[in-house]
């Protein structure tokens, strides 16, 4: 559709046309500035908590548990060095053996949503998965934040 529009604009004599091929979906998924009614409603992106604790896959459980408790969290997001999400540690996993590396007890496939998801849809998906926690990521896998309705302001 955008290619067709570009071709039409060229047929009108405009010369400097570019096409953003990935389009609006890509823009919104990367949590970039947008306007419109969606910008005024609650979404996964606007509700995501961004200062939750994170850890690496090889960190030891004891150390991660200590950090999470200090920050008053029962969860910790597992990321690599470029902040790509690898998994999630919830309360039960944080209670595992002190010396275990995080990667052995983390959930590698937690519920993951895009920033533009409306809040209603977020709640439906969390309900369907029977989970109290979900992650928000960009299409490149990088962490935007964590959704925890009981903790969300």
């Amino acid at each position, binding site marked *: *559709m*955008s*290619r*067709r*529009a*570009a*071709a*039409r*604009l*060229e047929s*009108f*004599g*405009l*010369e*400097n*046309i*570019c*096409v*953003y*091929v*990935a*389009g*609006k*979906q*890509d*823009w*919104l998924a*990367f949590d*970039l*500035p*947008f*306007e*419109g*009614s*969606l*910008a005024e409603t609650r979404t996964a992106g606007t509700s995501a908590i961004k200062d939750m604790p994170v850890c690496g896959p090889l960190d030891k459980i004891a150390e991660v548990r200590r950090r999470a408790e200090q920050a008053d969290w029962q969860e910790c997001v597992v990321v690599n060095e470029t902040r790509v999400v690898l998994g999630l540690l919830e309360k039960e996993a944080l209670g595992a053996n002190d010396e275990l590396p995080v990667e052995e007890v983390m959930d590698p496939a937690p519920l993951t949503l895009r920033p*533009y998801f409306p809040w209603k849809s977020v709640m439906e998906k969390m309900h369907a998965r029977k989970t109290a926690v979900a992650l928000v990521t960009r299409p490149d896998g990088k962490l935007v934040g964590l959704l925890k309705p009981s903790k969300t302001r």
Partner: protein
Amino acid sequence: MRRHRFLLSKFSKFVEVQAQTGSVSWALERRCMVRLLRDRRRISRKDDLMAEGINRDEVETLARNGAQVVEVLGAKEYEHAHIAGAINLPLTELNRQSASVLIRDRIVIVYCYDYQ
């Protein structure tokens, strides 16, 4: 494609340096952008491509430097969400008259929902 990326990064660096030294002028930026785009288009023509396909980072850079961003989806979809600063020219209503709102010597970035 690598050459395209090189040209854009060269342009971004140029604007950054000019802005830092306070010597940037809109006219100069615009001339530079148009020239770069023409270079890119010339390369694209060789590959039998149409209007230049650009990515998210390039949209940000070009929009920050005065490019016109145009959503070609319908008004309802535009009202729901659009790139900050974008205008709406629905494809269904696109004609010479509606397109006359675009400034001819400035870059136009066209987008819809996804790769359709």
